[in-house]
């Protein structure tokens, strides 16, 4: 190869490596965790700036020198790279604390975009920070002096390709370890249905922050590598549109698929934006450049229109049959729920004390007080608009109480967040189907496992060896549950493709996987055909026989009559009767509530 060709190829490879790291980072944030991070390029930028100033040595402000910046130092390689990752992570943490609140996706995207714009203005105007709009230049190439190579030598160029390759493999390792682990599964569940994930005890704020910080750190690493290669970095290096080229890469390659992200990086930023800068330009200056961005915009729209899942759609994860002896871990019994030994049958497991909820002056619930006895199925019935679902929401923590208290196992839990209540075994289901659509049925079940090995960052990074044992045991437990609910044939189907009735079953099984001590069911048979409804009814009766406590909102009074040991009747925001069905049968108020209102 002539040295010109070598130069061209090695340069492209370096850009490819850098873009792959960035695309993997954005895939983790956007494809896996569902964060529309419109400030993405800012994190690449901060990595580049930090790596540059930590390589450049002390600042040389004019008139003596020509560039002024903070933190100037000469750290040995690869410390600047590591520091860049740290800076990216820290900035992500800071921005995430403000920007990743519960907001509409598009509002969240706007907040993040605005952060990126503010950063551009600050960096441009605060000339003492990173030398303003002129930016930093003459950044020494790493290890060139140690190796005794001229940085302009083709040999050094290939050495740098090696560095990028190593970092790239490490970045892939990190992202892959996360996405294939129980943590990755939690992230995808959160992306598909945040409320359902919360109701299973997942701390979505923490999950989202984790993906954001890891992605931010990796983006910073990509920026650090880039600045070490091109030796200069200025506000012109991280224009806002660069963010969108990475979004295009992830969307084209296939959001949620790491291999797709790599292909996307090859197709969009590299083939499209970098490689074309080597072809001869035509037309007026800047014409090719603007046409490229037109093409990026078209790519995004065309893919979203016709191939919204990208070239390599997210993989449907299958679980292999468990290997005997692999698990040193003893699984929880199937189904796993524990009636605490301190909770004798019929003692109050949960107590609602004068719960009240107002929406802008309207009382959805005026006064609800009742207890839920351990080991029983309690029905919560009443005509439309009685406030049943609102009460269930207050018990689960999804709806804040206007007044009153919720006691669970004798402790006041009124101020606990929904996921904290779920972690204590208070698990709810939803009236609308709330399955994780892009997870398989089996994954929907396994994701519910509380405190799974590998659902934290450290555990995930310890890779399969660390969490496989437990996961196999949990998969076995899930399979047993599928068997019990006669859903084994559907175990590898995407939950989003199931029929309405099957989704209800998935939701109940998922709740059982979360080891509930009290199951709150919101119309578990709504919209289900009679045969399946009958089956669900039998399952619930079996679960009670196993000792599970349930509180069930239900419209079909025949079901309540057959299934519930005690019934709470609500009408117009109040509990109007409470007791075993035998006493309610002679209660005129109940009949009036239903027939008159």
């Amino acid at each position: 190869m002539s040295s010109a060709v070598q130069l061209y190829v090695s340069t492209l490879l370096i850009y490819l490596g850098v873009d792959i790291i960035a695309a993997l980072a954005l895939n983790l944030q956007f494809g896996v965790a569902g964060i529309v991070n419109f400030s993405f390029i800012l994190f690449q930028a901060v990595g580049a700036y930090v790596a540059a100033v930590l390589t450049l040595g002390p600042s040389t402000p004019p008139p003596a020198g020509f560039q002024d910046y903070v933190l100037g130092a000469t750290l040995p390689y690869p410390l600047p790279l590591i520091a860049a990752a740290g800076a990216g992570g820290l900035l992500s943490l800071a921005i995430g604390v403000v920007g990743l609140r519960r907001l509409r996706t598009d509002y969240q995207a706007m907040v993040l975009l605005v952060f990126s714009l503010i950063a551009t203005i600050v960096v441009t105007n605060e000339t003492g920070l990173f030398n303003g709009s002129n930016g930093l230049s003459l950044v020494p190439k790493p290890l060139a002096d140690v190796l005794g190579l001229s940085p302009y030598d083709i040999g050094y160029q290939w050495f740098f390709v090696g560095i990028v390759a190593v970092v790239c493999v490490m970045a892939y390792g990190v992202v892959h370890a996360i996405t294939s682990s129980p943590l990755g599964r939690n992230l995808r569940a959160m992306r598909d249905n945040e409320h359902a994930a919360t109701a299973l005890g997942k701390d979505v704020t923490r999950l989202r922050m984790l993906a954001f910080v890891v992605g931010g750190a990796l983006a910073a690493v990509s920026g650090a590598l880039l600045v070490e290669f091109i030796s200069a970095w200025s506000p012109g290096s991280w224009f806002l549109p660069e963010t969108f080229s990475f979004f295009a890469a992830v969307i084209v390659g296939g959001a949620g698929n790491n291999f797709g992200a790599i292909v996307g990086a090859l197709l969009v930023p590299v083939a499209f934006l970098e490689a074309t800068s080597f072809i001869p330009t035509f037309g007026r200056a800047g014409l090719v450049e603007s046409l490229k961005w037109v093409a990026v915009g078209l790519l995004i729209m065309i893919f979203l229109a016709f191939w919204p899942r990208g070239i390599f759609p997210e993989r449907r994860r299958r679980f292999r049959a468990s290997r005997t002896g692999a698990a040193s871990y003893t699984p929880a019994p199937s189904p796993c729920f524990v009636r605490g030994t301190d909770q004798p049958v019929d003692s109050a497991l949960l107590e609602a004390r004068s719960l009240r909820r107002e929406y802008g002056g309207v009382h959805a619930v005026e006064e609800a007080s009742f207890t839920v006895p351990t080991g029983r199925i309690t029905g919560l019935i009443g005509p439309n608009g009685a406030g049943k679902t609102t009460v269930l929401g207050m018990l689960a923590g999804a709806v804040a109480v206007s007044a009153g208290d919720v006691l669970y196992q004798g402790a006041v839990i009124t101020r606990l967040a929904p996921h904290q209540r779920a972690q204590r075994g208070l698990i709810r289901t939803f009236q609308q189907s709330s399955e994780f659509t892009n997870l398989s049925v089996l994954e929907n079940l396994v994701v519910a496992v509380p405190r799974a090995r590998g659902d934290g960052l450290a555990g995930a990074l310890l890779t399969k060896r660390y969490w496989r044992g437990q996961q196999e045991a949990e998969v076995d437990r899930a399979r047993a549950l599928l068997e019990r609910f006669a859903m084994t044939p559907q175990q590898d189907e995407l939950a989003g493709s199931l029929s309405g009735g099957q989704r209800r079953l998935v939701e109940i099984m998922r709740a059982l996987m979360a080891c509930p001590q009290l199951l709150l069911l919101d119309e578990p048979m709504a919209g289900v055909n009679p045969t399946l409804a009958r089956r669900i009814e039998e399952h619930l009766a079996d679960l009670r026989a196993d000792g599970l406590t349930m509180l069930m909102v239900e419209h079909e009074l025949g079901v309540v009559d057959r299934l519930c040991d005690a019934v709470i009747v609500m009408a117009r925001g109040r509990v109007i009767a409470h007791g075993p069905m035998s006493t309610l049968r002679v209660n005129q108020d109940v009949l009036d509530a239903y027939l008159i209102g």
Partner: protein
Amino acid sequence: MPTSSGNAGPAAQGLEVADVVAGYGGAPVLKGLSLTVSPGQVVAVVGPNGAGKSTLMRAITGTVRISSGIVTIGGVDITKWSSERRSRHGLGYVPQSRDVFDSLTVQENLSMGGYMLPKREVDDRITNVFSLFPSLLPLRTRVASKLSGGERKLLGIGRALVATPTVLLLDEPTASLSPELSKVILTEHVRRLADTGVAVLLVEQKALQALEVSDWAHVLVGGETRISGPSGEVLARRDIREVFLGAAALAIEASTAEDGKRS
């Protein structure tokens, strides 16, 4: 008109639903439902939750696909029409919730009800609505989101009336109202409305009041008519309670019967 039944004549002027099967993909929710509402009649459709009442409403208004059967108004087949066209043809609809434009004033809500009519006519009809529901008159400049539950419901019905529908669908008009207010809405307003010649189809979960105010009733269970007949007769049947409350209600009846004996 060469019809064999005396009932078909007036029905052709009102609403006729014949053998309608409808649902949301998958198993149909309505499994071949038929009913007629003649002008001046109030027909009640009652039934427990999940019986298919809302689907029936949506099949008539055209927001759910009808897979077989026909719907006619005034003898014209409207089965394949868009909802807009149905309302132009004289179909008025008051949904159970979100039945007014929250950000518009009472007056504006009413004039939106007459969107398809010439401006001058609308003013006359709004005056009519105000004479029918005088309590709305002092509120004409108030934004709908600031109305009470009862006022809202009257506005919802009034809004539908501005278009002078020949057929009016009321979807659980008393759902969020107190029993007293429900009674006023049903016995005073809905009944009086029918007396002006409108064909009213009243869907209610709370059966007793609906049966008291209506001429004819259908009890819907599982997407099919379980019981139908003149409302007075339906009200008198023992099994209506069973349909609603399952076995529980029978016990209540037994106990109230005992109470009666004792007194």
